[in-house]
């Protein structure tokens, strides 16, 4: 694997998507600002905006940077560079997720910090951790679908389904016994169920990335 | 196309642009200069070598042949070609050999007159 080339490709994508990335960062910061106002209403609005910004970022990045290569017909140009499918796939997946992970981490840590400082909501921390990771799983799904299918239709479907899934899972997890019991308490309680959910999510991420690389290696037509 | 290249080179020799023994561009250099395929120039050079117009020393390059008869010989060949053309066209027009000879005489006189005028200027 040619790591310098992967880096060059990732930097290229980040440069070309710089406006989207900056806009999202700005939106994310604004949301945090709203949350910092302190009222409950501000908290929910800010949180919603933050999640929207994150989901929009991962979806838009996947569309512009991944599906876009095919739509803009720049795929021959990229594939004429001294790389194989390995460098291409790595740069797309890692490039996409890396950019996403930064605002995501800020949001997650910010949320944890806020919850930690208000004693009555500390029980929400495990739930928040699970849901934050779920957003990461979502981003990974969208990126994988984009790389494998290179099609706008499939990627949009993944974005929509992911969104619906996110809400559905949010509801479901809040009712899982192992989590619901301690959610509304004032202490942080990591139940086995909560751990299991968290570990499953990371496992899913690993599987998706592995599957993506596997499928890419079997492709016989890159154009 | 290789014939055109041969003609061009012969012209250059005939008018003295390229002297006997002078080095001429390599096949590749000429190909690049004319934007023509290497294989066409190669063919032209081979034919020219066969006709004795140029010589190619492997590893050293190509040169105009040092045969002192070269320029006059080229002009001679050209004259023979033109005469053959004249004979053919004359026959097509239905002229007799005397009529063709007369036309040649007229052309010769015109050419001499031209040359005198040029020398006077």
């Amino acid at each position, binding site marked *: 694997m040619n790591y310098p080339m992967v880096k060059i490709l990732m930097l290229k994508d980040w*440069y070309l998507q710089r406006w989207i990335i900056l806009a999202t960062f700005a939106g994310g910061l604004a949301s945090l600002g709203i949350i910092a106002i302190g009222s409950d209403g501000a908290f929910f609005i800010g949180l919603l905006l933050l999640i929207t910004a994150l989901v929009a970022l991962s979806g838009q990045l996947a569309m512009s940077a991944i599906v876009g290569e095919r739509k803009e017909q720049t795929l*021959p*140009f990229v594939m004429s560079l*001294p790389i*194989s499918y390995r460098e291409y796939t790595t740069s797309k997946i890692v490039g996409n997720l890396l950019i996403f992970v930064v605002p995501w981490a800020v949001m997650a840590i910010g949320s944890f910090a806020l919850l930690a400082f208000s004693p009555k909501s500390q029980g929400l921390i495990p739930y928040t951790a699970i849901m934050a990771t779920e957003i990461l799983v979502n981003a990974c799904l969208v990126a994988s679908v984009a790389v494998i299918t290179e099609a706008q239709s499939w990627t949009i479907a993944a974005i929509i389904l992911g969104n619906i899934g996110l809400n559905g899972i949010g509801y479901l997890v809040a009712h899982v016994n192992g989590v619901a019991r301690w959610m509304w308490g004032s202490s942080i309680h990591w139940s086995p169920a909560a751990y299991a959910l968290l570990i499953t999510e990371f496992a899913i991420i690993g599987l998706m990335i592995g599957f993506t690389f596997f499928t890419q290696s079997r492709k016989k037509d890159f154009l | 196309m290789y014939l055109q290249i041969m003609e061009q080179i012969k012209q250059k020799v005939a008018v003295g642009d390229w002297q006997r023994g002078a080095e001429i561009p390599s096949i590749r250099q000429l*190909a*690049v200069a004319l934007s023509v*395929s290497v294989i066409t120039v190669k063919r032209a050079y081979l034919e020219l070598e066969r006709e004795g117009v140029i010589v190619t020393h492997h590893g050293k390059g190509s040169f105009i042949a040092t045969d002192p008869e070269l320029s006059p010989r080229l002009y001679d060949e050209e004259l023979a070609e033109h005469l053959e053309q004249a004979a053919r066209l004359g026959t097509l027009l239905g002229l007799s050999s005397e009529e063709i000879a007369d036309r040649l005489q007229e052309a010769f006189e015109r050419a001499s007159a031209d040359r005198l005028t040029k020398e006077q200027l």
Partner: protein
Amino acid sequence: MIAVHFEGVKKTYPHFALDDINFSLPAGCVMGFIGANGAGKSTTIRILMGLVHADGGTVRVLGHAMPAEQAAAKLDIGFVSEDMRLYPSATIAWHMEFIRSIYPQWDATYAESLLRRFDLKKEQKVKGLSHGQRVKAALLLALARKPKLLVLDEPTTGLDPVARREVLEEFMAVLADEERTILFSSHNTLDVEQISDQITFIDRGRIIDSNDKEIFLDRWRRLRLVLPADSELPSVPGVIEVGGSGRMPVLTTNRFEPAMVSAYRDKGATVQAVDNMTLEEIFVANVSSRRAGERA
């Protein structure tokens, strides 16, 4: 050194198949691929670049097996295809810097001279370029790296005559170096005829002829005959197509020798003219006679 070697290559698609592609391109030569649209030129080139994996056969480019060693091979290959686009929101300058950061052989001086030659402005965004400018920009990026092998899919299509000439001259400049090779496909037979050393004809997924250009031009002729009244066309070996009408047939041969002319004269026909054929005429005649042969 053989720059490109295809042996027994085949590729099957639902509506098209490439079959038994064999050819060898020595370093320092120019090979032109001529074929109708859909004949298989682009597919062959993509297989060469490792962008499409063949279903069978061997492909070696600059000594590397493709597609397994494509990353190493592509370090020395400059590729421009008709369906290739640059990033619309970025400038030409950005693309030049991008390529320069990847390839150590980037020649900045040469790149600047190409900018002037092709009349391109560095700071212009790609999305504002006309088609011809876009093609020239892509060619600049490929040429300035001084690659050992230039692979071009329809490089002059859509260019105005001035641009075409500039581009062809730059291609020839590449060949000043004996070790550099060009393979290009075109349905513009004039370009191919001008600069190619070798020509390969492709039709319907198969190579129907591949040879030195001069050999093609030597062996193909059109003979115009006039037959005496009430006589049949004498048969002479080597004729692959008969056209014209009645007493004035036009024969096409791909194995011309002066002896053919005397053969016809001996059998009573008058040979009015022996015409050379352009590469375009040769190609068309080659294809039509083969298709006629398939139908028979």
